């Protein structure tokens, strides 16, 4: 069964504040167990976002690579 997404944020074309800041904003506002998808056209996001998730102790559910952007799916765990 595909993961149920609680919130999806389209951060494509966001240079400032950027996709990672958009994700942190969503995680702060979300409830535990919510699943957030962030779309990013910044190639750095596929490294930056997993690094933050690891440090903050959340779960990286998946990275879906589409043409010209990636869709990163994150579960808030605490």
């Amino acid at each position, binding site marked *: 069964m595909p993961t149920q997404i609680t919130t999806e*944020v*389209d*951060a*494509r*074309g*966001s*240079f*400032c*504040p*950027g*996709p*990672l*800041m*958009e994700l*942190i*904003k969503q995680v*702060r*506002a979300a409830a535990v167990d919510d699943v957030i998808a962030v779309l990013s056209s910044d190639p*750095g996001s596929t490294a*930056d976002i997993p*690094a*933050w998730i690891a*440090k*903050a*102790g959340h779960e990286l559910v998946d990275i879906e690579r589409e043409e010209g952007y990636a869709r990163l799916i994150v579960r808030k765990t605490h």
Partner: protein
Amino acid sequence: MDRPRIVILGAGVGGTLTANLLAKALPAGAADVTLVDATGLHTYQPGWLYVALDRANAGWLARDVRSLLRDEIDLVIDRAVEIDHAGNRVMLERGGELGYDHLVIATGSHLDEAAVPGFREGANHFYSTAAAERLREALRRFDGGDLVIGVAGLPYKCPVAPLEFAFMVEEQLRKRGLRDRTNIRYLSPINRAFTIETVSTMVEPMLAERGIEVSTFANVETVDPVERRIDTLEGESFHYDLAVLIPQHVGAEVVRKTGLADVQGWLKVDRHTLRVQGTENVYAIGDATDLPISKAGSTAHFEAPVVVEQIVAAITRRAPDEVRSRYGGRVMCFLEVGGGKATMLRFDYDNPPRPPKPSRFWHLAKWGFNRAYWFTLPQGRL
């Protein structure tokens, strides 16, 4: 037939400029333009940084909105308390209501200091005139110790501001002979000093050179005003003697109740037309939107003409100009780096910024802009 009614909520950069551009673009008598603002004052918010750092006084930061508006605009000084988008009307605090054919919401961002436990008691900031003046006093009293600069909520307006503050406060403390007795730490929410990689690459050596320590992945979660300790979302703690933290920002209360905004109160808009999702005749600009771009005066400045073109086209019964009715994500801002130097960032949805090397020129350009602001931008002369 009655004249079309355009109501604009909020007299910041976005609302004031939209009102003036509409009044200018519409044929005389073609529509009624009404601007609603709770205070009747227009504040030049980039000035707060300079007030906090004792480089300017607060006197030049606010002006009567009326003095910035074209004569044909009606100014209503009252608070909008409810937006009935199905009934096309706005209810006001003093009991009146305004019907509209087109609504532009430019109600900005607001501070929620209570969102972070201990913030109000333990932290300073420069995101209001009163707070900037309090921080100026706290800095005057400061005689060394741990100075921590960080971000206690996302999103926040003017993403470069805490970095500018770090550079400029370092300079101030050096001049006051306090630098040797002060540790300056910059808590960055992400894994580098600034969100834009090219800018980060430029400023990181400058921070290192000035002895400003950067802690990455550090999003402030709580402040303990007794222990003088900041705890982060990522599980770290930092001691402070003076904490300068960006407070949580939220959308205006009136829009949070509309059902058109996200949980933080940012209106969901189309990223190109700026039309509020779920409506036909409501637009939002500036900080009030949920767009993943900088909350900054320049964003509102570049968005206003896009909304104006669509409304004018509707009223004059012509097709909107394809280019001018589409927002491309354009933002521009200055970044002070201390020592009388600055750089400039300009970007849009498709093009990242390529900031020039910091120089005296961009610092003077920022000061020139600060001074020219009152006579140019709100009136649509830039």
